[in-house]
């Protein structure tokens, strides 16, 4: 019995390890290698090792301005998506957690729908809905007069806005639209996690608080949020890492968004969509791989922080 026990775990792990090795590890190592070459359309079969040239180009070459802009927008994008989706998730979870609410099952099902529909399909639908000339959003807003209201509101700040609102082609509007759709995609997950976490808060704490005279709002701030924090922290970090690389939402909605003069990356391009464009539209495979390594380092750091904080890999004694 004892003789086989040391090999058995490895045998169980072997199929998964082999698959991961071939399908994930090898291609990643290859793309790390490619980042140090000048593999591109012109150097398709005779590319050569050029060392750190691609990385220099990103850090201190003509690429730098684009890289910094895309990097900051990626941070704002990931942070904003997580912030708003968690806010909505917590708010709805607190509402749904109320035992006096009738039909909470129905509400819960309806609220989870954006998560249930495959993201690919729903984002393409949003792309159609947000079309400037023919999209339903603009048509309905025009009929209800909401768009003229928005234009006059912006006029108060001295911003001239031509109608119909260019949701996917205008500089600020594309950012809003893309964030909005991503929050719509992301909040059901946050809602589910918060609902689960709320179950773990014992109800007698609330009773004690009401006896002490705390209002509902105060109870929320002082009791609910701190207790939820431990449960939500890992979700926050892993959500951030997930949204950092959320390719589908951006690429299918705006394909990187309204272009910016003098740059290859559009206004709503995040690092991953820009890297994709470099590889497949501009055929600069080496540079795209260098970007991919940057993205990997950033996300790996985030994941490392996550694991440390949650102790996910601590040995159980």
């Amino acid at each position: 019995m004892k003789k086989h026990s040391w090999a058995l775990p490895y045998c169980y792990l072997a199929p998964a390890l082999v698959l991961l090795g071939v399908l994930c590890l090898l291609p990643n190592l290859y793309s790390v290698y490619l980042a140090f070459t000048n593999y591109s359309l012109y150097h398709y079969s005779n590319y050569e090792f050029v060392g750190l040239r691609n990385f220099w180009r990103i850090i201190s070459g003509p690429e730098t301005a684009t890289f910094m802009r895309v990097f900051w927008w990626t941070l704002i994008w990931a942070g904003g998506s997580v912030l708003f989706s968690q806010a909505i998730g917590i708010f709805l979870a607190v509402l749904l957690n109320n035992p006096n609410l009738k039909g909470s099952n129905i509400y819960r099902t309806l609220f989870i729908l954006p998560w249930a529909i495959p993201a690919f399909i729903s984002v393409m639908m949003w792309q159609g809905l947000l079309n400037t000339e023919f999209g339903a959003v603009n048509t309905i807003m025009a009929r209800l007069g909401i768009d003229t209201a928005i234009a006059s509101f912006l006029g108060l700040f001295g911003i001239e806005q031509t109608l119909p609102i260019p949701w996917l082609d205008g500089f600020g509007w594309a950012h809003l639209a893309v964030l909005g759709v991503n929050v719509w995609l992301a909040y059901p997950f946050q809602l589910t996690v918060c609902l689960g976490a709320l179950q773990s808060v014992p109800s007698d704490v609330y009773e004690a608080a009401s006896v002490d005279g705390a209002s509902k709002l105060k109870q929320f701030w002082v009791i609910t949020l701190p207790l939820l924090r431990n449960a939500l922290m890992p979700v926050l970090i892993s959500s951030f890492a997930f949204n950092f690389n959320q390719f589908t939402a951006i690429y299918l909605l705006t394909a990187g968004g309204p272009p910016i003069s003098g740059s290859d990356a559009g206004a709503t391009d995040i690092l991953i969509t820009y890297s994709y464009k470099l590889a497949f539209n501009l055929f600069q495979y080496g540079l795209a791989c260098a970007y991919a390594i940057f993205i990997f380092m950033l996300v790996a750091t985030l994941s490392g922080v996550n694991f440390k904080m949650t102790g996910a890999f601590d040995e159980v004694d």
Partner: protein
Amino acid sequence: MDVEYPTLVELCDKFTKETGIEVVLLKVPFKDLRNKYYVATPAGLGPDLLLGALDWIGILQTTGLIAPIPSSFSYDDFTDVAQKAATYENEKYMVPLCMETLALFRNTDIMPKRPETMEELIANAMEIQKKYVKPGTKERVNGFYFEIKDLYFSIPFLTQYGGYLLGEKDGQYDPMDVGLGNAGAIRGAEFLRALRDDKQYGLIKAGCSESISRTLFYDGNAAVIINGPWMLRELKNRNNDPNKHHVKYSVDPFPPDKEGNLPRPSVGMQGLMLNSYSRNPEAAAKLIEYLAGTEQMLALSKSSGRPPTTHSALALITDDPDIVAFSKACDNGFPMPSHPACQAIWEPMKMSLELIANGVVEASVEMPSATERIKDKIRLMME
């Protein structure tokens, strides 16, 4: 090229009966075809003959994946445009079977008279967009609609006044000579801005796309769109389907403007290329000879709606007004450069055209600077 597939199958069966050489046709979705060829061919698993598009020649030759067509094949009967298109670095790499280009699709119910000049087209379109009401409804229609930011659709207007994609030096394409920053291209880009600008023509709003233009045309909501022969099959199917809206249409080549400047669309060709790793070059050469024959070209042309590329086949196609119109449009066009540098032009130009059309930047500033950036990119790629 999937509409011609049944015809290809028939022709290849006839070929097998005549010569006894067996032909296996492998049909691959168009967007995957190029990548599959790149991957399979160096491994020795590629096809002997590749039926692909003209602008692939440059990349495939640079990467060593296609071989020149044997000199025993005669190009005498092919049109000048076809011969020029098939040549790359003074060698012939493709036998073009049919050509395609962009032309105007006009809804003859909404705009019955064919416009003789571009000015007339724009004036008619503006009038239609302001006043025309679809019969039986209260809806307006679009006068003139196409995807402005896509360089492929806009290039006729850039070449109208002297712009060009890639210049030539010593009979070959010069990758450093990108003609999209010269005065002609700027004037064309200003025209594109005028199409979007509400203060000028204001015909096309933001968010235009090729698929929307087709949908509008099929439903009778657009008077004139720009598209190519690949749309004909769907259009004819819809006109034969009793459940769908029927559109009376006419295909017209681009008209010149009042001063005689003619918009020149880019002409693409689909043809046979020889795999450099092919193990049956003689049999492949025989199949090429067969498919380039007049009868076979006519059969392919009829089923695909695209004009054929040899003089003898062209002389026999007089009954289909659409194919005649497209072949006239091809005469007016320029062959798509097959140099790989051309690939680096499409995407950046798309962004610049969108910026210009939206009025964010001036055409006279953006076109030259975009051209410089593209040249830098080409230089970087070639390093």
